[in-house]
């Protein structure tokens, strides 16, 4: 199983000090966080993509390319890549280039994006969100698999005799996840292609995740990619840890209470019981994370959100130390013991990555 972190890339004022990092600091801190993820033995670093303040990651392949140059093992991914408003041709080119530079350590997650104005800013219509996700991905899929593409669609100018360069490393396109919270069309899309399905999971009650993953598994089997149990599932999670549970709650509460997404709303305690948010000791995080398996089945990737809501870099790096030293090694072992034979341990890895592991 793969463990990692995913970042939203928000620039948020630290509510305990009133200090707001600059964009420059946030970007450099993001790199430091990714390097730390590799250092403590995590498998994946994924960045969001946003095109409005207070977020910095508008250019994910620039960021990931830089991190690729400074790491050896980390898989670089996205959470998510906007398949609705990006030109699929540019996604094909950018991520194939990244794949070469990172020697295959790349996969990506498609998402629609939920910021209304981004659609018109990029010349699209939000009411066409799902059709855009379907058509654009169909084109991307083709660009990575066929050397010469003739293509006509509803949303983009036609292509005749087009070759997307560079071709994917060794002819193997990056593995793709499709991220969604509650759109059955996206679970269906992931299943159709035999791609991975990633449930954001955080911020909402588990029922949404449970329903979508079940649908995805059924349809994955329906389309003949394998059994329901073999479908490739990833989940988000959100944690804050200290040795003592009470210390974790005390330290995280001001960040929770002022967080951009859910702040000034329910209590930390209510939100923790209604969503996967876990604030407590490493042992509590281990137990909660293992419990996800009870409603989604054996899954392949767990990404944690650890760096938002204005948490200072030092604290985030401490969280990564705890994850790497105390939490993930236990989870790796426990999940591996529980996983039946025949269920893949990870999402498919690029042959170049597999080869480097065998050396």
């Amino acid at each position, binding site marked *: 199983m793969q463990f990692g972190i995913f970042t939203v890339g928000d620039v948020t004022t630290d509510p305990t000090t009133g200090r707001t990092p600059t964009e420059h600091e946030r970007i450099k801190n993001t790199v430091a966080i990714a390097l730390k993820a590799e250092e403590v033995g995590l498998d994946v670093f994924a960045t969001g993509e946003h095109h409005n303040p207070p977020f910095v990651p508008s250019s994910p392949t620039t960021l990931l390319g830089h991190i690729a140059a400074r790491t050896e093992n980390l898989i670089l991914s996205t959470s998510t890549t906007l398949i609705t408003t990006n030109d699929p041709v540019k996604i094909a080119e950018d991520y194939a280039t990244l794949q070469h530079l990172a020697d295959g350590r790349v996969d990506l997650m498609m998402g629609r994006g939920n910021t209304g104005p981004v659609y018109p800013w990029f010349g699209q219509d939000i009411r066409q969100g799902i059709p855009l996700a379907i058509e654009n991905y169909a084109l991307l899929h083709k660009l990575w698999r066929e050397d010469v593409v003739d293509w006509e669609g509803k949303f983009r100018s036609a292509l005749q005799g087009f070759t997307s360069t560079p071709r994917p490393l060794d002819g193997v396109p990056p593995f793709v996840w499709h991220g969604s919270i509650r759109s059955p069309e996206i679970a269906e899309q992931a299943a159709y292609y035999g791609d991975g399905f990633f449930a954001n999971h955080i911020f909402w009650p588990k029922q949404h995740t449970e329903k979508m993953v079940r649908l995805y598994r059924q349809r994955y089997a329906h389309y003949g990619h394998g059994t329901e149990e073999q479908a490739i599932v990833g989940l988000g999670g959100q944690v804050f840890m200290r040795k003592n549970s009470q210390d974790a709650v005390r330290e995280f509460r001001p960040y929770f209470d002022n967080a951009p997404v859910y702040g000034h*709303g329910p209590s930390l305690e209510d939100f923790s019981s209604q969503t996967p948010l876990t604030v407590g000791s490493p042992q509590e995080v281990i137990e909660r994370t293992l419990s996800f398996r009870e409603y989604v089945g054996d899954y392949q990737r767990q990404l944690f959100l650890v760096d938002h809501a204005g948490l200072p870099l030092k604290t985030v790096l401490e969280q990564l130390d705890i994850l790497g030293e105390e939490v993930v090694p236990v989870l790796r072992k426990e999940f591996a013991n529980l996983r039946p034979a025949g269920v893949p341990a990870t999402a498919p890895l690029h042959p170049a990555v597999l080869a480097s592991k065998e050396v």
Partner: protein
Amino acid sequence: MQTLKLVAVSAGLSSPSSTRLLADRLTQATRYRLAEQEYAVDVEVVELRDLAVDIAHHFVTGFPSEALQGAIDKVTGADGVIAVTPVFTASYSGLFKSFFDLVDPAALTGTPVLLGATGGTARHSLVLDHALRPLFAYLRARISSTAVYAASEDWGSGGDEYTEGLPARITRAGQEFAELIAAAERRAGDGEEELVPFEKQLADLRLD
């Protein structure tokens, strides 16, 4: 004998509240008329005051608490909805509107709805037609023709030579609403979301 589900939504804030009182009277009048037509009636009341904090949290977090989801399910699964609000600042109360903001816009399509409002003076009675009726028209509910406004003075006076008293208005509203419910086709239950197979989604885009 068929059992119909009648749900009253009351946005009254005090206890006892005249809004709840009007909701109960309207429910009773409707139930009486439906019983005459051999329908059994199952009545539930949703008191929005009890859900006020959950409603605010839903706006902030994007998902409902169990109690709020239960209330929304009751309303959207009803054979008839009696919706009663106090008049605040020339319209329905913010709490009343907030609750209906959280109901899926398509979930009340075709549902018979009886409207009621309460206020300190009769001068606000057109709120029924200027605020409540457009809201439920947007939701494509079937709005019963007589809606009832109760001003404070209505609870202590009869009709005069020009206007019927409150009991007569309630009786007429109940009668019309019962007829509307009986006539309405029983809507299909809350089915699973329909899955569009991927080939169809692709075909709809007329790809090459």
